[in-house]
């Protein structure tokens, strides 16, 4: 029975990789500034934080940074009319991701969404955004949404998700017509929601306690689709140990400090992505790992052990130890997947906290009730004085944000860690 379930999961994970995401090569360049644009789901700094932290910690390429342009209540139309030109372009992003639609389904017709998204894509393309990733909208929770918003009528969640699915098709079509990237956040979330509810029960909150704003679980799925859409290849690093010759090597971002007698000391400036929490809790990221191939696709931190002196070895990394066969180790094990709590967990959390603060400052500057909004309003009310102030103040804010963002990226500190390998009994 376990085997059947494993096969089913493997197949579903495989289908995830094959069906949902388009970017085949890394679309990011060194020094890219990625504008994460969306509504309150972006503004709440969860999936956006995961994406921001991944780009800094896991370094698909050097010196990447993100700006959170999420704004509560935003629709594609409101973003187009009030934020895109005055807020986003001021920061000169080179890459942008879009995730609108949740509020569009509540307040406007699909035609308005389509028209707005088309214009957004054109404006970004014409203003220095080299790569644009159009994301489809997420989902509403089939359990929580009706309770929060519609007095318990479960049909309302079904209808809303169908409407979101319609916008998803429109988003895909617009991306295709304009030769920009597309990532199907909606389908990924629908699938992960079905699977997680099948495992944990219908009351398991996949898309948040209000049914709209996912907790960490749903946000990890969103981050996965966005990172895949950006073409991240998931190569964090490979450490190779030959226990016979006593040689150890590591790929870029990880430096071998020493190796002797099964004790390997390393220093890394590239982190694997780290997960937290009880898998059964929506406020965790670990719970989604069986439903999305995050570690397989985006987080491969491989240990290869050649010429093992025993049929199996006990591998200790940080406080955790596990036993693997020599064959497994010769083929390579993914440390990031096998050791969810590991020596990077704490530094990753600290880095994430710094980026979270940066994103919160971003939202104060450009989010829903933000300084940029007030500047734009003052300009509208008093075009002469407010207009001149807007120009000058915009530059000051961009400089401030840039300083804070640079600092958050610089918080990636080298991590010293060791891997202990010793012969063990049967795994």
């Amino acid at each position: 029975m376990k085997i059947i379930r494993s096969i089913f999961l493997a197949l579903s994970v495989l289908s995830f990789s094959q069906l949902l995401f388009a970017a085949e090569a890394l679309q990011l360049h060194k020094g890219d500034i990625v504008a994460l644009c969306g509504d309150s789901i972006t503004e709440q700094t969860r999936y956006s934080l995961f994406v921001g932290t991944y780009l800094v910690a896991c370094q698909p390429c050097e010196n990447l940074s993100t700006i959170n342009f999420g704004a509560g209540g935003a629709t594609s139309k409101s973003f187009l009319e009030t934020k895109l030109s005055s807020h986003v372009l001021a920061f000169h992003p080179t890459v942008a991701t879009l995730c609108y639609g949740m509020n569009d389904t509540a307040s406007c017709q699909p035609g308005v969404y389509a028209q707005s998204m088309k214009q957004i894509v054109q404006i970004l393309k014409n203003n220095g955004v080299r790569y644009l990733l159009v994301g489809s909208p997420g989902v509403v929770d089939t359990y929580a949404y009706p309770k929060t918003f519609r007095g318990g009528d479960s049909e309302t969640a079904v209808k809303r998700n169908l409407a979101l699915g319609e916008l998803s098709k429109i988003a895909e079509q617009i991306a295709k017509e304009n030769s920009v990237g597309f990532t199907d956040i909606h389908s990924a979330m629908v699938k992960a929601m079905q699977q997680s509810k099948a495992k944990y029960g219908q009351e398991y909150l996949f898309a948040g306690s209000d049914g709209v704003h996912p907790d960490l679980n749903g946000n990890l799925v969103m981050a996965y689709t966005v990172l895949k859409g950006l073409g991240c290849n998931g190569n964090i690093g490979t450490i190779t140990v030959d226990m016979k010759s006593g040689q150890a090597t590591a790929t870029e971002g990880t430096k071998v400090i020493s190796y002797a007698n099964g004790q390997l000391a390393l220093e890394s400036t590239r982190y694997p992505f780290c997960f937290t929490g009880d898998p059964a809790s929506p406020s965790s990221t670990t719970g989604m790992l069986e439903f999305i191939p995050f570690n397989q696709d985006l987080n491969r931190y491989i240990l290869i052990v050649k010429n093992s002196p025993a049929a199996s070895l006990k591998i200790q990394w940080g406080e955790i130890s596990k036993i693997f066969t020599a064959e497994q180790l010769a083929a390579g094990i993914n440390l990031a997947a096998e050791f969810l709590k590991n020596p990077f967990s704490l530094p990753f959390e600290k880095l994430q906290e710094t980026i979270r603060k940066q994103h919160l400052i971003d939202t104060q500057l450009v989010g829903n009730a933000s300084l940029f909004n007030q500047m734009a309003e003052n300009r509208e009310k008093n075009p002469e004085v407010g207009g001149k102030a807007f120009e000058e103040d915009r530059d000051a804010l961009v400089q401030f944000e840039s300083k804070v963002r640079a600092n958050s990226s610089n918080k990636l500190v080298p991590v010293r860690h060791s891997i202990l390998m010793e012969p063990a009994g049967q795994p």
Partner: protein
Amino acid sequence: MKTFSNLQKKLAVILFHLLLGTSLFAQAPIDLQPRDVVAFCGDSGQFAEWIGAYLFACQPKSAVQVLVFGDRGGTTKELLDSTCNKAISLSPNVVILCYGMQDGNFQKSNPQTLESYRKKLSQAVQRLKSGGVRLVIITTPTALDPDVFKLKKLPITPEDYSSTLSDLGKVAQDVAKQENAGFIDIYTPMAELIKKAKEKFGPTYLMTAADYVYPDKGSHFILAYTFLKAFGMDGDIGAITLDMASGTATSTAGHKVISSDKGKVELESTRYPFCSSGKSLNPQDPLDPRSILAFFPFNQELNRYLLIVKNASAGNLEVTWGQQSKEFSSDALEKGVNLANEFPDGPFCAPFEAITKEMSRAKSFYNGTANRLLATADETEATIPDSHEVCEKLRKVVQRQSELLKNSGTATPSPVRHVITIAPVAGSSK
């Protein structure tokens, strides 16, 4: 007999209002100057937004502007720590300090609490005056609703805490005297009207927010009334006079007659009557501020927008204003009917509500966005090396945009076009 009964009722109402007017609200007028910027600093702000909307839209003095700082839960500690400086940064001429509900610590009155409140209020007045504020006004704390207080299960009886608030009010008065500041007693009128409202509507008529101890809509109305009376507002919003015989119409300043005939006046107004938000769904609902109007003469004293009809062609006339129509006798119209009172859902409601929302948004900016960003600038400067310059720039942006927002509040309200039609009621003769 019926006539006598109505007369009795009217006399009773007049007497009641006179009593209220003299006992509860009679305080030495505080003289606001044209173009004054009045900053409310306190622990509960909606009434201040209404006052701001009144001063802006009803224009009893030219271009007086209100800024609102502080929010629920504020104490004199926050006043000293940050609110004073925030207020000073926008150069107000008049600052009103309205604290006390939290300063009492929900304990029985004791010397330490009273002394702490006294010291902080005194320091705040001194700081504000040295920051260039012409006039500082201290108020008593607001009053509590004993029924909400019981619901909240606070560790003190409402009677005991009322006594604490009353003692804090005396301290506030003392400080005002010592520091040569103005003083307004908002506790007494609020407490007395809470009592009267409960006598009529019962204990379920809650005058402070059900989940807390701060004023709710009805009591905000009382507070707005108390302040506006203390400011000496005369309540003349305007008068429109139509002569039905000639079809000519005249109006007072702020209201321009666009056209008129024997039964119709079209006007454009830049002076609004005050409009309370909310629909009168339930006159016993304390969340509808209009339900509290029965207890004090707001419209009579502060909100007179008169329609006077001369040479009426019939004994009774139907007046239509906006979506509403009402019948009046020609005698009543000859003397003048108060449109603001008779037509609570008149054509000014929507634009007036837009102004109160604007006030609310401005308050959110000063107390929320601007506040957070100034804190962010401080934190960034303390934690990120070489960030002084960009943090200073951020502070300047916040200051400049706050100033721009403040200055935008001095514009004239958007003109409102509206039509009054007056038609004879069939069969009514003069």
